[in-house]
């Protein structure tokens, strides 16, 4: 589509304020957005989301150091945002969902390594959540699981039994000590239906989903 001026993303932008005029077919008025301009105005423009609006054009106005004299205008037609079902939007939505889940589990955006022992994996099926952790050498008596609403705590101690006197070490990589980790659960679980199993050094906590959180099949009646 036609552009008044090509964006040059390689050029460092000294401008610190940008404004965007968005014209859409559904809303006759222009939407005005003003914010600090990041390094690349094109990326900034693309970071907008307009739910349910078919965007006709976007005009980016950059103010040089906040001064209206150093004004530059760019026009870009946005064809990416449309109201029709769009596979890219689906992917975007999905990515947002995944990010939300990561955040709820306390891992931060896209972080898989929480830096808290033990590391956990979470799985789900229709009825339950499964939280698994590798806890080699932890005795069941030294493991404590407590369930509070919306989250639960894994707590325990891993003891490396002292060996007989008169030994000398070649390698010592295994570590003992206490641990404590809190895990939040994204959907409501039934606190009465939590079970835990420790087998071959793997802990599995099964959290039953509350009835209202389970997916329900609705059958359509025909008359």
């Amino acid at each position: 589509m036609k552009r008044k001026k090509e964006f040059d993303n390689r050029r460092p932008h000294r401008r610190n304020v940008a404004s965007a005029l968005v014209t859409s077919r559904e809303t006759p008025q222009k939407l005005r957005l003003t914010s600090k301009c990041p390094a690349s105005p094109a990326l900034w423009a693309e970071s907008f989301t307009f739910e349910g609006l078919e965007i006709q054009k976007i005009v980016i106005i950059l103010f040089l150091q906040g001064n209206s004299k150093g004004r530059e205008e760019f026009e870009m037609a946005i064809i990416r945002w449309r109201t029709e079902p769009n596979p890219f939007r689906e992917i975007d939505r999905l990515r947002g969902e995944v990010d939300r889940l990561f955040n709820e589990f306390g891992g931060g955006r896209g972080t898989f390594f929480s830096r808290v022992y033990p590391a956990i994996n979470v799985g789900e099926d229709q009825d339950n959540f499964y939280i698994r952790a590798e806890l080699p050498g932890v005795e069941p008596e030294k493991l404590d699981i407590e369930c509070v609403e919306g989250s639960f705590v894994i707590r325990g101690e891993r003891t490396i039994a002292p060996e007989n006197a008169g030994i000398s070490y070649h390698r010592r990589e295994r570590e003992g000590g206490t641990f404590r980790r809190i895990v939040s659960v994204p959907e409501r679980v039934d606190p009465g239906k939590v079970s835990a199993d420790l087998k071959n050094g793997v802990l599995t906590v099964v959290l039953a989903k509350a009835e209202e959180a389970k997916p329900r099949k609705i059958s359509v009646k025909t008359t």
Partner: protein
Amino acid sequence: MAAKEIQLQEKKEVEKGAGESTRPGFLFVPAVDIFENENEITVLADMPGVDGKSVDIDLRENTLTIQGRIDRQEGEKEASVYREFNWGDYYRQFTISDMIDRNKITAKMDQGVLRLTLPKAEKAKPQKIMVTTG
């Protein structure tokens, strides 16, 4: 005893080409303690998810190989929601001096920890050498 907190360590993958894996998936290096006294060498290896039947120990020449296979941990219909670690088999090799009594090696799995006892051969035990004066 004032116990310290355990620090999380990322699982270490076996370097490519080092382990002869016949299965797809991850292959990890188990953390080990190795110590000896005058009678035996003991190896303790953390291999969570491995049961006693899935451990393979091989002593060939001077090379001791430990392999542990894990079964699928997730249920059939389970979908992964969040992942901080990967499941995988274990593989590690050590070079051991040839003074082990191969017939008396014992291995035991307990809560995902392998305990391997390698008794020293008679001739390898320290002997007092009498110095004669003539």
